[in-house]
């Protein structure tokens, strides 16, 4: 289970299309490589997230976690490797315009929220469905209000981002991503910019989402959240996955010196 340094992932053998319903692989990345100039940021990173699973990626900053997450939805194009969504191979060489359809199947929430500052919470949520899915305004608003309910912010629908707390902004950002009805959600250190008392509300929203069966890939430093919610934890270091496994085994019984050092650092 651990020592997944082999670029071919442990999930490599089960063909993504052959998976039976309960363990269907929703998103799979095989041997993703990314270089910036002469720096190799990702050196053969693989991941297979089954439907409804929560995969947590942990590691020190600079280990390639965020870059990998951006390769999964092709915000960054990998230099090598393959991507599959629900068994379908994604052609990563296609033009940006052709990648948009793939990308809206995969929701993403960012560390810095990235809400559109000139739009109210509601407008932030309805914008993409109206542009991309050509949903009518009435329909988009109805759905957005439902999502605001879900993130417990219905009463803040008309507020602009600057009028919202960080935790509220992040929950609106989650609702905005959900409005596209994604099949997978990516979370990139979404609580790192928040005060401790605001982290809780965002993590609670993410817990609800996991309980609803959303497939999630979460880059996070919130170890108690990772321990409670993640089905699998990947530990990255130097652009590779050094260890992978169940949260308790990864966090309590680290095998590699890198993970031991990382765990020791975050526990105090």
């Amino acid at each position, binding site marked *: 289970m651990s020592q997944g340094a082999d670029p071919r992932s442990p999930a490599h053998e089960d063909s993504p299309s052959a998976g039976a319903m309960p363990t269907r692989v929703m998103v799979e990345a095989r041997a993703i490589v990314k270089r910036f100039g002469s720096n190799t940021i990702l050196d053969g990173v693989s991941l297979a997230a089954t439907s409804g699973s929560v995969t947590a990626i942990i590691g020190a900053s600079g280990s390639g976690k965020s870059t990998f997450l951006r390769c999964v*939805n092709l*915000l960054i194009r990998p230099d090598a490797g393959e991507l599959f969504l629900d068994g379908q191979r994604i052609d990563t060489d296609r033009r*940006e*315009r052709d990648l*948009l*359809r793939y*990308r*809206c199947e*995969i*929701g*993403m929430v*960012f560390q*810095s*929220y*990235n*809400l*559109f*500052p*000139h739009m109210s919470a509601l407008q932030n949520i309805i*914008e*993409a469905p109206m*542009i*991309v899915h050509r949903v009518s305004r009435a329909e988009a608003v109805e759905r957005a209000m439902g999502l605001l309910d879900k993130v417990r912010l219905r009463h803040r629908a008309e507020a*602009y981002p*600057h*009028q919202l707390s960080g935790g509220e902004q992040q929950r609106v*950002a989650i609702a*905005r*991503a959900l409005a*596209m009805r994604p099949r997978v959600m990516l979370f990139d250190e979404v609580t790192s910019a928040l005060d401790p008392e605001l982290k809780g509300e965002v993590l609670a929203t993410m817990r609800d989402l996991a309980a609803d069966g959303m497939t999630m890939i979460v880059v996070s430093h919130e170890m108690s959240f990772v321990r409670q919610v993640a089905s699998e934890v990947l530990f990255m270091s130097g652009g590779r996955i050094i260890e992978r496994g169940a949260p308790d085994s990864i966090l309590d019984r680290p095998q590699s010196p890198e993970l031991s050092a990382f765990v020791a650092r975050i526990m105090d």
Partner: protein
Amino acid sequence: MDEALSPTMDMIISLWPRFLDATLLTLAIFVIVSVMSTTIGLLAALATIGAGRWLSMVLAAYGWVFRGVPELVILLFCYLALPQLGLDLGPVGAAVLGFTLISTAYEIEIFKAGLAGVHRGQFEAARALGIPLPSALRRIVLPQVVRIVATPWITYATGSIKRISIASAVAVTEIMQVTKQAIAFSHQPFTLILFASALYATMASILMIAEIIAARRFKQRFGLSTELP
């Protein structure tokens, strides 16, 4: 007092139609030049987003020439030198071309700074939501650029109006040209230059008030300052 003032007032009143025409011509040149240079400047700045190094180099060279060479020299070139190349635009046409070339160089810089001021995450969020680039620019990026460039754009526009006085050197009958002509036959430079100043100051003031109103609206509506972050 009456005797001292009335000849001056009479002169202004008799010259008023000419000053009015000159003011309208100044405004017309300003509007045409602003619309063209703003449009071209914005498009050129947008083009640099995805473009390679060659476009940036071409724009840098363009900016270096038209921000570096004095306005008067460029106007004289358009008015006197271009006819030699077979392009005779007349005084007003030459002034419009010259000022558009100059203003475009500045507008490119203003809009490039405006685009750079939009947080990188905004582009990323739009891409992550699957929003095509043209929609993302129109709905998400440009409204934020407008907020960022409001102050520098109006500051430059205020200068633009004043700069049109240089067109008097290429025989455009704008405010300064009419003023110089009036001085030549009335020998009242003090009053006339004061009057011309008042006309320029009025036009510039309208723009400055527009900036204050714009800044206040951005603040009320979005809680966003027009100051650069």
